């Protein structure tokens, strides 16, 4: 499990790098998208607010225009002109019922008209309601609608909103349309006043709004409030609106949008009324609008991130799984094993890598096998060389003995020894073959013993007791001679008494046993254990010279040829003699050739 959590592994690296990169990418994308959407949503909201503002202005305008038609109809009326010009039957003192009837008719038809009345130059006022009393405490000349209409010639003027108190006991919020009525020569005959109920305009302003908190307000041409939804706050200075900036905007110079304290102001001027209609849009309303968009964006990012995360995981593990498998298999090399990877799921690169590795492992295996073989060959040839090396002392001593016997005229002995020596060499060469019949091996050791017996006269005698059934079995050549040599030089030669050397051979469960036994000085425990230790070591090169070089070589050769289960074993006790036993398998005759 360890490597999943460490940054060192390929998988976690790929995963982490991808995750970080994708995280960053999504994050940046979201930031950009957010900013962009915020902008778009904002400008859309502002645009639609502007459209609504325009609609509001045109509605107010068309409303006022509609009212103007009424005033047109009235000012063009013969009856009205007559009354204003003091013409007609009734000297003008009595209000003509016909005009009043018409005025009343208009008011009844249009419930948004609060009052229509005519003012004559003698300050006589003609209202729609004959019952109505003119407020005695009001002065016409103080009324802006009156003075402005008088000055404006025949044009209609629109007042700001105010409380009309012209009729006694009646107070109403109105916007007044007033218009001077002129005669043909342009002389002012009177003024027509149409009072519009202000709540019509205020409800228009309050209905056409955007957002939860947005509102509209209206300023007249002088910058006074015609309408404000929280007028009282404005007049008591609890709320202030940036009037200068708003009016500046309407004049066409500078920005068309003004921002203050989280509110957007936009203005439209109505040329008909001379008013400035201002629409206020709260930024927080816009934000709530795109808050949901933001939520969706974030959700998308989340889902995207999860999906990409899973895919990344899939991809990274797809890449790294075969690599890890490869790694596991290759890791076994440490233990000295060279397993093949075989068929592997993964990308082409990984498969190539696996195949190349397999080829490499194959080569390594071949090379290792070749190496082992070579080593074996080398050791065999080493040993061959060793075994070919007849102790020069032995040859020299033998030849010395022959010379000496010749001088002594012992012709028979010379012949005997020389022929034994000849046989010894012939068998030890045996045409370069490694394996020879046990019979030849026994012949070889006998020749050797003949020579040694002649040299060490009366020192020892030998016996051979070999199962005749094994005589034709094969053995490694020069197996017994080193053992016999060892027995003579280290066992018998040192002994005080004439000794006996026995060579025996038998077959036991397909294993050939050859034994060389002497009753010489034997070995103490220490020497025996040294020899046994050497035999056990195996493989290693025996020390040159000294005790048991020959024995060791025999042991090594048997093990090289027949395996580690076979070889030499040694038993000995001080002054009782030594037994050397050689064990090797029953050889198939086919093998021998």
């Amino acid at each position, binding site marked *: *499990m360890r490597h999943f959590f460490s940054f060192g592994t390929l998988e976690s690296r790929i995963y982490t790098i991808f995750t970080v990169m994708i995280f960053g990418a999504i994050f940046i994308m979201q930031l950009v998208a957010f900013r962009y959407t915020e902008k778009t949503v904002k400008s859309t909201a502002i645009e639609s607010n502007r459209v609504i503002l325009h609609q509001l202005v045109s509605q107010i305008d068309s409303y006022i225009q509609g009212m103007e038609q009424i005033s047109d109809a009235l000012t063009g009326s013969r009856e009205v002109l007559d009354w204003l010009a003091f013409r007609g039957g009734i000297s003008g003192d009595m209000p003509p019922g016909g005009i009043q009837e018409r005025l009343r008719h208009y008011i009844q038809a249009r419930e948004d008209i609060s009052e229509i009345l005519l003012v004559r130059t003698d300050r006589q006022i003609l209202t729609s309601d004959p019952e109505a009393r003119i407020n005695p405490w009001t002065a016409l000349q103080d009324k802006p609608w009156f003075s402005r209409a008088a000055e404006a010639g025949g044009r209609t003027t629109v007042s*700001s909103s105010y409380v009309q108190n012209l009729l006694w006991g009646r107070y109403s919020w109105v916007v007044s349309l007033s218009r001077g009525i002129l005669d043909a020569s342009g002389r002012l005959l009177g003024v027509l006043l149409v009072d519009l109920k202000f*709540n019509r305009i205020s409800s228009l302003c309050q209905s056409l709004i955007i957002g939860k908190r947005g509102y509209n307000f209206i300023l007249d041409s002088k910058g006074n*409030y015609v309408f404000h939804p929280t007028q009282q*706050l404005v007049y008591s200075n609890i709320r202030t609106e940036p009037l200068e900036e708003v009016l500046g905007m309407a004049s066409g110079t500078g920005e068309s949008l003004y921002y203050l304290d989280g509110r957007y102001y936009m203005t439209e001027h109505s040329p008909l009324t001379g008013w400035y209609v201002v629409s206020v849009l709260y930024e927080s309303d816009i934000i709530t609008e795109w*808050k949901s968009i933001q939520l969706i964006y*974030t959700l998308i*990012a*989340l889902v995207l991130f999860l999906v990409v995360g899973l895919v990344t*995981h899939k991809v990274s593990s797809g890449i790294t799984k075969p690599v890890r498998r490869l790694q596991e298999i290759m890791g076994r090399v440490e233990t000295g094993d060279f397993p093949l990877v075989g068929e592997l799921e993964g990308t082409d690169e990984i498969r190539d890598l696996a195949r190349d590795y397999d080829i490499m492992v194959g080569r390594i295996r071949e090379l290792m096998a070749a190496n082992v073989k070579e080593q074996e060959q080398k050791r065999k040839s080493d040993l061959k060389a060793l075994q070919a090396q007849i102790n020069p002392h032995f040859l020299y001593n033998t030849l010395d003995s022959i010379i000496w016997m010749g001088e002594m005229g012992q012709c028979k002995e010379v012949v005997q020894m020389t022929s034994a020596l000849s046989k010894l060499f012939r068998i030890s060469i045996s045409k370069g073959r490694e394996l020879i019949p046990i019979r030849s091996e026994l012949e070889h050791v006998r020749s050797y013993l003949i020579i040694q017996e002649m040299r060490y006269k009366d020192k020892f005698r030998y016996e051979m007791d070999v199962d005749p059934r094994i005589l034709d079995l094969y053995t490694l050549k020069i197996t017994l001679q080193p053992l016999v040599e060892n027995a003579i030089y280290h066992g018998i030669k040192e002994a005080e008494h004439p000794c006996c050397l026995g060579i025996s051979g038998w077959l036991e469960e397909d294993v050939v046993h050859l034994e060389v036994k002497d009753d010489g000085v034997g070995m103490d425990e220490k020497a025996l254990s040294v020899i046994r230790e050497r035999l056990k070591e195996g493989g290693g090169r025996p020390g040159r010279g000294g005790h048991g070089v020959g024995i060791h070589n025999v042991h090594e050769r048997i093990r090289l040829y027949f395996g580690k289960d076979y070889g030499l074993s040694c038993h000995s006790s001080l002054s009782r003699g030594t037994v050397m036993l050689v064990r090797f398998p029953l050889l198939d005759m086919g093998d021998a050739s």
Partner: protein
Amino acid sequence: MKRGFFLILSLFAAFFLFMVLSFMYDTASGEEGRSRGTAIEVVLKSALGEDMDFWTVVDQGLHDAAREFDVAIHVTGPPHEKDIDRQIEILDEIIEEDPSLIILAATDYVRLAASVEKAQDRGIPVITVDSGVKSKLPLCFVATDNLEAGEKAGEYMKSLLTGLPGKKAAIVSHIRETATAIERERGVRKALGDLALEETWFCDTNVEKAYRISRELLKNPEIGGIVALNEGSSLGVARAVAEAGNAGDVMVVAFDNAVQEMIYLEEGVIQATVVQRPYNMGYLSVKAAAEVLENRKVEAVVDTGSVLITKDNMFERGYQELLFPFSGKF
């Protein structure tokens, strides 16, 4: 194990992404996520009847502010201003409903205090509007400075009386032991000094009673002026003066802005009237409530101010809406 680990890592990162992004835009959007939907209960002095212009305008201010500050409000009240028991009952019922805040216009300075304490015990903050209670618990008191308003009325009466040497002014008040009545009277007396008669007459907001009181008062030759301390008493006093035909002989300084008062003002029966700002009262009390709910500090007393209106300034643009509120009536 491994799969789980990466999944958790992904989830964690995604969650982190989500948090960072939404936090960024939460802070950018400022006041978002405020106490929307939490109801503020408003208990006024009287339910909104046709004649009670004052409370209609307060209500308008309440609702306009509720829209602007994005809070939900619910307005109730007893049928009549004198129905103190009913108001206590209503308030107690509302406390049971555990609203987030209560705005109260107390009908009685003393008797409502117990209910306010009960609300406080339940952790419901209380703001008083127009008329307070005898308790230090309300976080905020949004009202006309009635002492100052009374002083304005008194000062004007004093200036009127300079033209009538030897004459004194009588005070016709509305309900005994009402905070507004007490404060206004104190203001008037402070300004008039010994020009005011020592006795105070109470009409219990009843026009008829004020009228009868005034008829009696007009028989007293010493009286050169009457200060009426609320709408009902003003109407009664003005009617008596008008009927007696001595408009302009006996000075009247009134309170509030009933339509009839406006007519009397134009006629010259009433020389001046002190007008409160009920719209601002409603608006500012909800504003204070919104601030309380946002755990912001609020002023203990918010003075909504008063204006002395005479015939000369009654049609000034700034005062028109004060005197003739937009409520469909004008």
